[in-house]
């Protein structure tokens, strides 16, 4: 498989602090690649470096065969971007937003008009064609932003937290559309801090923290590489006390408020032990990406 994005030793320094600190990436054609990390991990800065919107303080980037940032203009001709914050034109209708944006790619009005019906249908906005942006719901605005990113029929689409702030229905619709895009052979690069989003959408993931990639691979690989396969979450006022007496039943414990997370290779002895403690409630489930994420980046709040 050919790679569409290659980054080696990428660094960006702000005020003496490395926000992106030596990142190597190889993103293949047709895959959905996720950058995962807590706020401030350097995800957005990495995207901006890959797009050539920032000059790196070290390292090299190649996007669609073009050297970045030197040839960023040529590369961006075939790229679409869904930014983290909405920046639609509030004075315009849905259709006008697409028309005006297409012109920035050097497309003629006829070319853009010809693409409008498909773009509107893809984003479920056909009925809203002439609605002004301020009258749209949050989900509609996101879908319009996605349609706008597709106006030039790009090969690569960058999405910075594409579903942040959306309700579950709106989020599922975006996910469905993104899967359709990968099915059409588009390459997607997205940042997120929603683990279910990453697990559902991404073929491969890189977990970032403090400007570095701390683990990389498919969601399954990340789980297999980093964490025990099963988790038992134990709740109750006495859970923490109980955990001190039950160390032999789990490979690892993590305490979070009144919950104890028990990571185990085989849950049977632990479940048996829990039968003896009717005052404790528990959930037994397979380990997921969120467990990996919290293990790698810690449970403490980032503010």
């Amino acid at each position, binding site marked *: 498989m050919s790679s569409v994005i290659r980054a080696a030793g990428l660094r960006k320094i702000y005020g003496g602090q490395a926000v992106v600190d030596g990142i190597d990436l190889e993103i293949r054609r047709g895959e959905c690649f996720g950058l995962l990390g807590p706020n401030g991990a350097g995800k957005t800065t990495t995207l901006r470096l890959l797009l050539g919107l920032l000059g790196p303080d070290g390292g090299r980037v190649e996007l669609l065969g073009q050297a970045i940032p030197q040839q960023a203009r040529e590369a961006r001709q075939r790229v679409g*971007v869904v930014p983290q914050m909405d920046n639609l034109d509030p004075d315009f209708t849905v259709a006008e937003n697409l028309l005006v944006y297409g*012109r920035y790619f*050097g497309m003629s009005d006829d070319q853009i008009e010809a693409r409008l019906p498909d773009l509107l249908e893809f984003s479920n906005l056909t009925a809203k064609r002439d609605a002004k942006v301020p009258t749209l719901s949050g989900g509609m605005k996101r879908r319009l932003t996605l349609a706008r990113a597709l106006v030039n029929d790009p090969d690569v689409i960058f999405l910075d937290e594409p579903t942040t702030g959306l309700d579950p229905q709106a989020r599922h619709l975006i996910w469905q559309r993104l899967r359709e895009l990968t099915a059409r052979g588009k390459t997607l690069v997205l940042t997120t801090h929603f683990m279910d989003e990453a697990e559902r959408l991404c073929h491969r993931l890189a977990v970032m923290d403090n400007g570095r990639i701390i683990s990389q691979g498919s969601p399954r690989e990340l789980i297999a590489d980093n964490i025990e396969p099963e988790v038992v979450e134990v709740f109750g006022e006495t859970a923490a006390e109980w955990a001190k007496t039950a160390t032999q039943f789990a490979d690892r414990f993590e305490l979070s408020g009144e919950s104890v997370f028990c990571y185990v290779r085989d849950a049977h002895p632990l479940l048996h032990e829990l039968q003896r403690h009717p005052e404790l409630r528990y959930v037994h489930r397979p380990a997921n990406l969120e467990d990996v994420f919290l293990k790698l980046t810690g449970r403490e709040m980032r503010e």
Partner: protein
Amino acid sequence: MKMNIYAWPQFSRRFVPIWQRNYLVWKKMAGPSVLGHLADPVIYMLGLGFGLGAMLPEIGGMSYLAFLSAGTVCYSTMNSASFEALYSGFARMHEQRTWEAIMNTPVTLDDIVISEIAWAASKSLLSGVAVLMVIWLLGLAHTPLSLWIIPLSLLVGLCFAAVALIVTALAPGYEFFMYYFTLVITPMTLLCGVFFPVDQLPTMLQGVSAALPLTHAINLARPLLNGAIPAHVMWHVAVLLGYSLLGFYLSLVLFRRRLAQ
């Protein structure tokens, strides 16, 4: 490779679609906009021109109203470009994040800054033409030379848009623009011969006046409206162009620095 914020600007035709975007926004509010371009200068000209003018002798062979009309054309075009490049420019850059959306396409910051100057100058052109029509309607200019006011409006627009963009590039918020109006624009209107001839000022202030771009605009506009070819045309044009180019380059450097954060 680090980006060099001092790099020479790259010119391309890609600023045109941004100009078209601004035009489409403007078209939706053209009524109030044109009214705004007309109301302010007309009120000044009629209020001061008739009120004050009735008490004043002729100045350099023209009525006070005619004298004031040349100042008003330049003052209005200066204001149009300044407001556009400050408030609307800041909204596009900061509040609406329009620039951010545009920079995700093959259009670059250089194109955006050029588009801001071109658009603000277009608003000046409109403003200049509007005031010129009022001047014609009031019978204050009877000369075909007055048509030169049209390209002059564009040049004054380029100049003040470019200078105002420096302020926009530095502004943390809208309140910041009050400094520019209070400390630069208002003194400029009083020092540059809008309301009274510059030679009424103390010698030291005349020197300051000679360095300000509005003076040079008015030194071109006043003879043109009065049917005379201005003295030192090339010098005045050069000063206005110089401010335009310097403002453009400085603001571009500052925007590059600001947006690379």
